Structure formats: structure tokens, C-alpha cells
């Protein structure tokens, strides 16, 4: 049952790959709810089903059965087209391998989601170019990459690329930030910078869902969900 301040509710979600003898159950009836403003870490071994769960939560993949309710709306039956719009309005995704557009500069990578979303979201469409510029500059400052605005992804470090990816995820002021192994490709120092950034975002009221291998990093989240063999093994809230 969903509560009033639940941002995301997952009910009996199953995901099966293949058919017959080669059938594999990646998720076996997962139930989960995430409240607004929570920093949730999902941990688990390789093949445990955590990435599958993340893909389903971000609308990248669809469950075989069960449902996903986001901010009161059941997104399970959404078409790809509806999911695109839903993601643009509500979700910011940070990938493990940054996934920046190689031919766009840092600033342009951050502006791109605004341009896409402005086509269907009136509140974004009405933003003037000066306001847009101001907003992007603020976010770049927030993640500490304002000096890199005209650099291309190939010209900056991995940490800087990941901060750019975080900035891109934040630019449309999403309700939920989903991060898939955001520090998986970063050194210790850069990992720390990214984690501090996430913590500051939580302080600002953002909701973050992070998948990680790293137990130490997971410890810094409000809540740790452990997945094993497609089931939630444990769900520990620290606050």
C-alpha cells in the first residue's frame, strides 16, 4: 500500500528473460517503496538483479508482471512514447560510463535535456534563453565544473565527466535521480567528490536511488536495500 509521501512504489515486480529451458528469473516479486527526499542505495552481487530493478524503475525496461507507481501514477502500462515524456519530467539518470554526447561540449550536454523536455513541458518551454543559461551555469557551479563549459568529454577527466553527467541529470529538476554505479569508473578522490555532491543534493530535498557494489558508499545512504537472486534480502533504514 502506498503512503502519501511515497515517491516510488514497486509491487510484486517480476522480470523473466528467455523462454522454456533457458528461462531466467531476474526479479522474483519485488516489493519496495521509496519516500521523497530519501537517499537509497541498492547493493548486491553481479547478476543479483539490481541493474534489472534499476532499469525497471527508470522505465528503461518493463516488468514481466507487477506494477511500478511513481508519484501516484502507474507507469507500468506506459508506452515508450509516454515513458520518454515521463522520464524527461521526473527522472534524472546517471550512468556508470557517464554516457555523454561525444560531439557536444560539457555545457551543451547539460542543455540538451532542457531542449528535449521544452518540446512537451510548458514550464520548461517558457524558460527564456537567459534563464536557461543561468540555470545551467548554476548547476555547473553546484557540481564544480563551471570552468569546463566549452570542453568536450574527451578533453576532461572521468570524474569531471561524471559530474557533467550528474549536472545533466539535475538540469530539469527531476523528482528522482537514479544512479547506476556512478562511481564505478572513478578513483577514490573523485568518488568522494561525487558522493559529497549526492549528499548535498539530498540536503536540498532531492530523492536519489543509487546502485553500487561498494558497501562503504552504500553506508552513506539513508537506506540500504540488498538484493540477492532476484529478491530483496534486506532493507535497512538508517534514519
Amino acid at each position, binding site marked *: 500500500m502506498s503512503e502519501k509521501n511515497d515517491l516510488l512504489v514497486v509491487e510484486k515486480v517480476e522480470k523473466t528473460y528467455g523462454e522454456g529451458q533457458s528461462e531466467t528469473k531476474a526479479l522474483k516479486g519485488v516489493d519496495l517503496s521509496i519516500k521523497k527526499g530519501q537517499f537509497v542505495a541498492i547493493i548486491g552481487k553481479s547478476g543479483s538483479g539490481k541493474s534489472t530493478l534499476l*532499469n525497471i524503475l*527508470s522505465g*528503461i*525496461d518493463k516488468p514481466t508482471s507487477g506494477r511500478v507507481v511513481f508519484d501516484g501514477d502507474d507507469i507500468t502500462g506506459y508506452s*515508450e*512514447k509516454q515513458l*520518454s*515524456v515521463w*522520464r*524527461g*519530467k521526473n*527522472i*534524472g*539518470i546517471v*550512468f556508470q560510463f557517464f*554516457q*555523454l*554526447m*561525444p*560531439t*557536444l561540449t560539457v555545457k*551543451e550536454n547539460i*542543455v*540538451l*535535456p532542457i*531542449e*528535449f*523536455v*521544452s*518540446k*512537451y513541458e510548458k514550464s520548461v518551454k517558457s524558460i527564456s534563453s537567459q534563464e536557461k543559461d543561468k540555470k545551467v551555469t548554476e548547476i555547473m557551479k553546484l557540481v564544480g565544473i563551471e570552468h569546463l563549459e566549452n570542453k568536450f568529454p574527451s578533453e576532461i577527466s572521468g570524474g569531471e565527466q561524471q559530474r557533467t553527467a550528474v549536472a*545533466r*541529470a539535475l538540469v*530539469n529538476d527531476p523528482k528522482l535521480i537514479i544512479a547506476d554505479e556512478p562511481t564505478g569508473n572513478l578513483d577514490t578522490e573523485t568518488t568522494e567528490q561525487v558522493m559529497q555532491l549526492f549528499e548535498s543534493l539530498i540536503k536540498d530535498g532531492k530523492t536519489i536511488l543509487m546502485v553500487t557494489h561498494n558497501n562503504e558508499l552504500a553506508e552513506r545512504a539513508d537506506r540500504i536495500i540488498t538484493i540477492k537472486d532476484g529478491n530483496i534480502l534486506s532493507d535497512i533504514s538508517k534514519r
Partner: protein
Amino acid sequence: MQVTQRKKINRDMWSDFNRTLLLILGIFVGILSVCLIIDSFSVLKRESSISYINTEPASFSLWLNDIDDDLVEELKKDELLDEVEPRRMVRSRIINDKGDPVETYLYVVDDFNDIRINKFSFSDGASPPQKGEVLMEELSANVVGCEPGDNAELKIPLYSSESVRIKGIVKAPGFKPAWIEKCAYCFIGKDTFEEMGGSTDFIQVLFTVKDHKEDKEHISEVAYRIREKIIESGHMVNRCEINEPNEHPNAKQINALMFLFEIFAALNMILSGVLIINLISVLLNNQKKQIGIMKAVGAKNSSIGEMYYAMVARISVIALCLAVPAAYFLSKKIVVFCADMLNIEISSFTIPHYLVALEISVGIIIPMAAASFSIVRYCGKSIKSCLFDGQSGIGSGFKRVSFLSRWKNLILKMGISNSVRNLKKLLILVITISVGGAVFIISINLRASLDNTIANAQKRINYDFLAVASKNYDCEAVDKALEGAEWIRRKEYISGGMAFYTREDRIQSNSFLLAGLPKDADIFDYPVISGKGLSYNGDNEIVINQLFHSEHPDVKIGDSIQITTNKKTGEWKVVGIVKEIGGDEAAYVNQTEYNKFYIDNENEYVREIAFFLDENGGESSQIYGDIEKRLSDNGIDIQNTNSINDVQSAFANHLKLIAGFLMIVSLMVIVVGLISLVSFITVNISERAKELGIMMSIGGRHIDIIKIFMCESGVIAVLSLFVSALAAFPLTIYLSKAFGRIFLEAPLDWVYSFKSLMIWFVLISLCCMAVSHLAVKKFLNKPVCEIINYE
């Protein structure tokens, strides 16, 4: 589309310049080939018509026994007529300084300054010709091998020969090309002609009608009324010839060429479309991950599609800007070549605005439509498949070749399984190469079918040398003239002459050859395509050729038809239709019956003498010369001679232009096909760089890795060969039939050239393997870590 999206597509285009260049080149070649054909087609079609119409071609001609100025003036006053001009044409021979005779159509002109019908334009030398001088048509001058100022011997049949000076060269687009017909066209003044003993009998009078110049029915009505009017005035009209309005005498060649232009434009358009689908698909496949990311950050399919449409539009515009002028420039060369070949005068190379608009539309619409196929497909992919499906199909590739499980050669097995692991990709590539292959094979097959048809036609001609006399002669006189010529193994005498068929509405047809053949004639052996051959049993049977039948479709087997020649009319029963390649309209009858109807003196029936020569008789040209000399010395006036070599060379000349066109098409297809192949293979290998790196890291030798990719290319080449060979089969049959009907009025004896298959296979295999080799080699020279991280 917003600023960042525009920036992205700009940078995507230029960040991988080589790929963009390949895409531009691919679209450029596609548009170029289509525009080239459209430009050449439109100019040739228009100019062949304009240049012919500018000559003010006669609407119809009447042949009169005699004519006087009063009659001409009276006719000129007729309100149905625009122009009237008497002109006599005599079939003569011109002998160049090497002694080679060339059959010549000699036109006797009353006033060179007042030519109103069948006009010609002055080109070189001087005009008008004075006594002892002639004007020669431009292409004829090349056939005879003379230029202004040269002297040549002119022989008018039944009269003595005179030396004449070539005063000038004229362009006369109303004639069939002299080089194809192996003849010459000359214009001579009335004075010179009469001085040479030329008769003023049987004057041809040319007419143009005032109104409805393109309406053949109206022209026929006017011709018939004028004919009656002349007869009422006390003159005799021997013959009436109605021309096809605005149809160039060489229309068959032009139409055949135009047909090929149309067909290959359509095929090229398909090929270009498939090439573009392929290239855009390759481009988008490389952008797959970026599409996934854009979707993940909120882009709708339409927003992403819009970007790639814009990119394709930009590339198309660049390709179009290059292709349209290039096509115009190249088409000029093709048009000039064809115009020279077909005796067309080009007054303007202007391409109509609507065609330029069509080219621009085609240049934009085809790439955009072709790109839609890939854009819709890739933009419709889920984020998951865009971001995480990089290695898809590997397992399925092995499953599809499970029948090779016993093979121990893993390298070959990998090569084959890799080629089938992504069936969609394989399908697109195989279709692209196969369309190219099919067009290539068809063009070679058409050429081979033409050659085969001509070779079969030649096999049907059994004589070595044919002499055509100016009139029918006594066969005993011919026998006497040829006495002692031991190298003549055998000879056949054929009666005949130009004849006219009287239609049901009592109007005479245009002239055709009526030949009286002796029983058991061996001169030729044309295949019967309908009905039966001559039975020589005295039933007044006539066999027509397919050209006659095409001109007079109302004539059917079993009909009785009236045919007039030598001012006499005979009635014949049509019993069959024969296929005669390379000839003109003709009909064949029993010689005995021919002589009975048309010859007064029973002994005078030899018009054509066919010689069957002894193989060991000596040099052919000397024998031909000797035959002609013996006949001339004995008072037998020869109008024209034809050796089997002449026939063969005439056939070959008729084919030259078509063969040249087919060769250009084949080369164009090879370029388009190879670009497609190169782009696909290089990108395919780049995409699988990680696999290459992994194979290297686990100890794969360079040669073995190259072998895997080359084997993959080999599979593609073999599959494409099968598909193109199959697709070309029905198209070859259809096009051979259609083209043959236009060009020869009979379907071609089609052949499927296995040589074309071999050439295409070798070309594609070599290209596949060479490109694979080079593309893989490029990666193998890099450090493994760099290859593994290659994006």
C-alpha cells in the same frame, strides 16, 4: 530543432569526416546516376524531336511521272498545304580516292537558296554547289572519308560516272545516321545531274500540310486528296508515302536508347535508395548508444528523428549541390556523343525547370524516404537495446550454423556464424549488393542477348556477296558476264524491287522490298514466327517479315493483299511471318510467280545476285571487285553491293551505341555497389573493434583474425551472388523481350550470361576481402587496450 541539437548534428557530421564523406559520396553517386539519366534523356528526347522538326520534314511525298512549274504553282495555292517542293532522289554510288564504293542517296535540288522542306544546314566548306560539285552530309563524309575540296567519283545507275568535287558539308538531322546505314547522302544541283545524264522522270514531290501537322490521319486525307487532284490534272502518281509525323527516321534507335534510359533510371533509383538505406542504417547504428542516452534524458522519438532527418537533409543537400551540376556536365558529354551517333543536332542543353525541380525533389525525397526506414527503426528502439545490446546475435549466429558443428576449423566457423548473427543487417547488405548485382548482370545479359540475336540472324544469311542491279536483267547476260569466275561456287538470282501494298481504303503503303525467291533458295533462312514458309506450289503465296507486320498490323495470315511494283499489281495470299533481324520492311514470294505478275520479258528477272564463294578463292575484297568489274564490263549496272562483312559491320554499328550505354550503366552500378560494400564492411568492423581486441588479447594471430572477417565477407559475396542471379533472371527475360520489340520489332534471343555472374562475383569477392583485410589491418596495428576501448 534547437541550438544544441543543431550543434550535435553538425559536429556528428564533421567529427567523423570520412564516414560523412562516404555518405555524401554514396548519396552523390545515387543522385548523380539518376540525374545523369534524366538530363541526358530529356535533352536527347527534346533535341531529337526539335532538330528533326527544324528540318521541316515532309508530311508526305508523291512520286509523279513528270511535273511542270504550273502544277507546282497550282499545288502551292491549295489551302490544305503549307509547302510544296519537287525533289528527285536517286540511289547512286560514290567512290572515294581509295576506290571504295559507298551507296549514296543523291538528292537533286532545284534551288539551294530556297529549300523549304527536308532542310539541312551548312556546316563546312562552301555552298551552293556549282556544276560538277556536290554537298555532302556530315556523317556521310566520315563514311566516304572525304572533306570539302576533295574529288570523288559519282556513279548514277545506268549512266556513266563523273568526277565531282565536294564543295561543302551540311548537317541534315532528318537522315538516318550514315555510319549506321553504311551509306552517304549527297545534294547535287539539277544542272549537274542532267549533265551527267540523270533522268527527270519519276519526280518525288514533297509536301507539308498547313494544319494538324502531327495528325497522321489528317495527313493521309490530305495526301489522298492531293493525289486525286494531280491525277485529275492529267499527271500520273506512281507512289504515295506518308511519314510518321515528327518521328525521326532513326526513331527505333532513339526509342530503344530512351527505353534503356528509362529502365536503368528506375533501377538506379532503386539501387540508390537501397544504398542510402544501407548507409543511413550504418550511421544510425553507430549512433545507437547516443540515441539511448538522449531517450534516457527525456528525448521523444520524434525529437531524435527530427535531428537525424535534419542531418540526412544536410548531407543530401551537399550531395545534391555536387551531383546536379556534375550530372549536367557529364550528360552534356553523353548527349554530344549520342547526338553525333544518332545524327541529332543539339541546339540547346537546357534542362527544363520542372526537371531540375524533379531532380532536386528526388535528391531530397529519396534520401529522406530511404533514411526513414532506418530512422524510424533506430528511434523506435528501446533504451535498453540501444545501450546494452552491443553484442546481440552472437549466440544466435552460432545456433544458425549449428549444422557446421562437426567442423573443426573454428576460424571458418566463426566467420560464417558472424555473418549470420545479425540477420537484419545481413539482409540489408545482401539486398544492396544484390540490387547492384542484378542491374549489372541484366546490363551484361542484355548486351549478350543482343549479340546472340545478331549472331543468330547472321547464321541465317548464307551468301558471301550480294550484288544489287539498277534494274532487272537477263539472267543469261549475267551468266555470260561471270563465265570463267572459278571462285564462284554457286549463285542465286533474285527478282525484286521496291513495292507498295494497297490498303483496304485504297491508299498505298510506304515502299518496302518485295523479293521473288527461286525454289530451294539458300540465300537466307529466316525463322518463321507465325504461319508457314513459301511452298512454291503456285498458290500466289507471300511471306512478310515482322517489320512489315508491325507497320501493317491489319495484314493477317490468310488475308489476300494487293502489291504493286513496276506499275503492275498482283494479288498475294499471306501465309506466314518471318523474323528478319537488321533488315527493313520486306515480303517474299515465289520467283516464278513474281515474274509472271511483274516482269514483261521472261528472261529479265535478275535484280539481285547472291554469290556463294569458294573458301580458297583468294582475297575477298579482290573477288568482290572482280565480280563487279565483270558485271559492269558486260553492261550490267550495279546499284549496290553488300558483302557478309558489310552486313556484320552494319549489325555491329547498330549496336555500338546501345552497347556503349550498357557499358556505362554497368560501370555506374559497380561504383554504387562498391561504395555500399566498402561503407558497410568498414563500419561493421569498426563496430566490432572490441571483439577484435579480445581475440588479440587471447593470442589470436593477425592472419587468423583477418581470415574470420574475410570469411564473413565471402559469405556475403556468395549470398549476394545467388540473390542477384535469381533476381536478374526474370528481369533479363522481360527486358530482352521489351527492348527487342522496340529496337528490332521482335523479341531478342535472350541469353543468361554466366560471364556476368563470374565478373560480378569476382569483383564483389575481391572487394569484400580487400576491404575487410584493410579495415581489420587498421585495427590490428593498434595496441590491444586502445582497440578494446574503441568507440
